[in-house]
C-alpha cells in the first residue's frame, strides 16, 4: 500500500449511540418482517418503528460525518481509510451479486438440462425439453402441484437496450461532474450530477414499467420457475442498488449545491461515483447474461 510517513494525529470520533440504535432498528425490522409474513398483527408496527429508527440513524449519522468532514477533521490519513474501506465494501457487493449469477449459471447450464436428460423410463418429466428460457417441467414437489406458466421471455432489444444506454450515459455524466469538481467548475459539477440523477430516475421508471408489463401481459412473474426467479432476483437486486445509488447521488447533489467538496478533498463524491460505476458494471453483466444470451 502507500508508503509510510509520519502521520501525526488520527481522528478517533467521540462515543456515539447511532450504531446501537441502528442495530435495534434492524432487529425490529427483521423480526417484524417475519411476524408479518406469518400474519401476526404486531409485524407491520414493528417494521414501521424499526424503519423509523433506521431512518433517524441514516440522517443523524451521515449529518454528523458530513459535519466532521466539512469542519476539516478528516485529513489525508483518514481519507485513505475511507477509500480502502469503500473498495472493500464494493468487493463484498460483487460477492453478493456473484451468488445470484452463480445460481443463474447453475440453473441454466446444469439443473434445467439435467431434468430433461433422465432415462425416460425413470423420469416424471418425459416431455420436458430442458431448453432455456424455462419455467421448469412442473409436477408435484414440496407437497404442492406446480404448473409452469406460459410466459414470454424478456427481449434484450427494447427497454433493456435503452436502459443500457441510459446507465452508460449516467456513468459518463458523473465522470464529467467529477472533472468539473477537480477543475473547480461548480456549475459543471452540479449540472453533471443533476443529469446523472435524472438518468438514474429514468432508468428506474423504465424498469418499473418493464416489471409491470412482465407481470400483466407477459406472464413473467417471480413464480415463473428458474427463468422468472433468476430474472427478477438479479434485476430486482440491481434495481435496489440503483435506487440506493440514486439516493446517494441526490445527497451528493444537494451537498454540491450547498458548496461542499473541494478539488483536493471530496471522498464523499468519489465513494458515490465508485458505487455508481459498480452498479453500471453489474448492469452490463445483467444485460448480456440475463437479457441477451
Amino acid at each position, binding site marked *: 500500500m502507500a508508503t*509510510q510517513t509520519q502521520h501525526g494525529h488520527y481522528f478517533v*470520533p467521540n462515543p456515539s449511540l*447511532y450504531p446501537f440504535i441502528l442495530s435495534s432498528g434492524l432487529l425490529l425490522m427483521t423480526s417484524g418482517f417475519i411476524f408479518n409474513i*406469518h400474519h401476526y398483527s404486531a409485524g407491520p408496527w414493528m417494521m414501521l418503528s424499526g424503519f423509523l429508527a433506521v431512518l433517524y440513524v441514516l440522517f443523524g449519522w451521515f449529518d454528523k460525518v458530513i459535519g466532521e468532514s466539512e469542519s476539516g477533521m478528516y485529513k489525508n490519513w483518514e481519507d485513505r481509510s475511507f477509500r480502502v474501506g469503500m473498495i472493500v465494501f464494493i468487493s463484498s457487493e460483487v460477492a453478493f451479486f456473484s451468488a445470484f449469477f452463480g445460481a443463474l449459471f447453475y*440453473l441454466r447450464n446444469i439443473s434445467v438440462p439435467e431434468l430433461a436428460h433422465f432415462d425416460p423410463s425413470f423420469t416424471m418429466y418425459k416431455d420436458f425439453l430442458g431448453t432455456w428460457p424455462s419455467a421448469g417441467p412442473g409436477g408435484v414437489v414440496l407437497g404442492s402441484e406446480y404448473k409452469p406458466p406460459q410466459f414470454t421471455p424478456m427481449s434484450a432489444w427494447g427497454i433493456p437496450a435503452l436502459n443500457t444506454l441510459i446507465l452508460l450515459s449516467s456513468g459518463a455524466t458523473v465522470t464529467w461532474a467529477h472533472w468539473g469538481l477537480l477543475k473547480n467548475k461548480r456549475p459543471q459539477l452540479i449540472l453533471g450530477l443533476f443529469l446523472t440523477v435524472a438518468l438514474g430516475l429514468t432508468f428506474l421508471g423504465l424498469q418499473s414499467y418493464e416489471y409491470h408489463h412482465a407481470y400483466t401481459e407477459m406472464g413473467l412473474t417471480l413464480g*415463473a420457475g428458474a427463468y422468472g*426467479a433468476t430474472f427478477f432476483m438479479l434485476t430486482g437486486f440491481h434495481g435496489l442498488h440503483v435506487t440506493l445509488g440514486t439516493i446517494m447521488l441526490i445527497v451528493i447533489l444537494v451537498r454540491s449545491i450547498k458548496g461542499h467538496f473541494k478539488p483536493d478533498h471530496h471522498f464523499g463524491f468519489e465513494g458515490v461515483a465508485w458505487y455508481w460505476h459498480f452498479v453500471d458494471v453489474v448492469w452490463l453483466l445483467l444485460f448480456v447474461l440475463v437479457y441477451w444470451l
Partner: protein
Amino acid sequence: MSTATTVLHDEHHAHYQPGIMRWLTTTNHKDIGTMYLTFALIMFMVGGAMILAVRAELFQPGLQFLKPEFFNQLIGIHALVMIFAALMPAATGFANWMLPLMIGAPDMALPRLNNWGFWLLPPAAILLTLPFTLALFGIGDGALATGWTFYAPLSVQGGIGVDFAIFAVHLLGISSVMGSINIIVTIFNMRAPGMTMMKLPLFAWGWLITAFLLIATIPVLAGAVTMLLTDRHFGTHFFNAAGGGDPILFQHLFWFFGHPEVYILLLPVWGFIPHILSAFSRKPIYGYKAQVYSFWAIGILSVVVWAHHFLTAGMPVPALLYFMYSTMSISVPLAVLFFCWIATMWKGSMSFETPMLFATGWIILFGIGGLTGLVLADVAADAQYHHTYFVVAHFHYTLFAGGMMGIMAGVYYWLPKMTGHMYNETLGKLHFWLTAIAFNITFIPQFFLGLAGMPRRIPDYALQFAEFNMISSIGAFILGLSQLIMVYNIVSCVRGGKKATDKPWEGAQGLEWTLPSPPPYHSFTEQPVVE
C-alpha cells in the same frame, strides 16, 4: 520481530460516558474488543448448555428427555451459536484488542463502524434463540430444525424458526463484513512507520486473509439464504425441481461460504499460536515468510474445494476427482505450518505455562482433526463416512480443538496484558488438563461410532452404539463443567490478583508488550517507529 524506539503515551486522560452508556456508545477498540470477548464467552456457555442437553439425551438409547423436533433445533442452533456467536466474535475480539497494539496504531481505522459491527451481534443472537421462547407462547414451532446447514428442501418446508435464522444470518453477515472492512483498512492504513507488510505480526496476516475470505464468501451465504427466503414465501423455484431448480444448488452456495468459513475460524488462531510458541520457547518464530505464503495458499485453495462437503450428493466423476485432489492439496501448505510450529519450539528453552500448554496440546489435537479431514476428502471412503459421527468427531477436532482451544491459549496469553493482573496459574493448568482429556473422552468414541455407521443428527440409536455414546456423554459433561474453571479464572483475573508487569512472558516479542499492563485507554497517540 520488531522493536519500538519511541512510545509516547496519551497526555489527555480517557473520556467515556458513565455506566452502561460507555458500552453502548464506545468507539474505543479495547472497549469493543472487551465486548466481543465477553459476548463470545457468554454465547460459548449458551451453546455448550444446548449440546449438553443433546448429550444427555444420547447418554442412553431411546427417547428420554427431548422430543426429536426439539433435539433437531438444539443441534442446529448449537452449531450456529458456536460458530457465529462464540468462535468468530472471540477472534474478532482479539483483533480489536490486539491489532492496534501490535501494529502501533492509535485505534481501529473506523471506530464507529467497529461499534456497529459488535452491536449487530446481540440482535442476531436474539433472532437465533427467540423462536425457542416464542414456541412456549404458542407462536411457531420452535427454532431452526434443519441443522446449521439450512439444506433445502427441508428448510423450505420448515417453520418460523427458519425465517428467524435466515435474518440472524443476514445480521451476522453484515457484522462480519463491517468487521472485515475495519480490519483490512486498519492493517493497510494504520501501521506504524517502518512496519512493512513483511514485518507484520503473523496474527495480523492471519486476520488479513480471514477478512478477505469473509468479504468474498459471507455475501454469497447472504444470497443463498435470500433465495431460501423467496423460495419459502415469494414463489421462486431456486431449489425446486418442478420449476427447473435444484436442492443441490443450495448445497453449492452454502458450502462456497461454508468451507472458507472453516479457515475464517482457524486463520486468526494460526496467526497468534506462533507468537505463543515463540514466547515460551524463547526463540524467534521459525519460517515467518513460509507461514505467510502458506496462509495465502490456504486462503486461495479454501474457496475452490467446497463440494467435498457433499461428495455423496451426486456429481460427475471428474468433478468428484477435482474436489478430492484440490481438497487434499490443502494439506501441503498446512503441513508447512505444522513443521514451522514444531521448528519454532525445536531446541528452544521451553516452559509450560497455561498458554503454552494450550498451544502445544492444540498442535496435537488439531493435527488429528487435519488428518481425519484427509480421510473424509477421499471420494471412495467418504461414501462410508458421510453424515456419520466420524464427521462430527472430525470437525470438533478442527473447530473445538483447533479453534476454541487455540482461542483459550490466546485468552491466557493476553489476559495479563488486557486486565493488568495475572490469572491463577494452577487453575489454568487444571483447566487445560481437564479440557484436553475430557475432549478426547468425548470425541474419540465418536470416531468409532462413525466408523460403525452411526448417523449424525439422530436422537435415538441402535443398541450396539450404547457404550461409546455413554462414554462420549460422560466426557462431554466433564468438558462442559471444566469450562466453568476458565470462567471463574477470567472473572477473578479481571477483578484483581497479582499485578502483571508490562511483559509478563519473558520470551514474548511484539509492540503490545512495550505498553503498560493494562494499556492506557488510548494506546498510541504518537505512533511508535519500527526499525
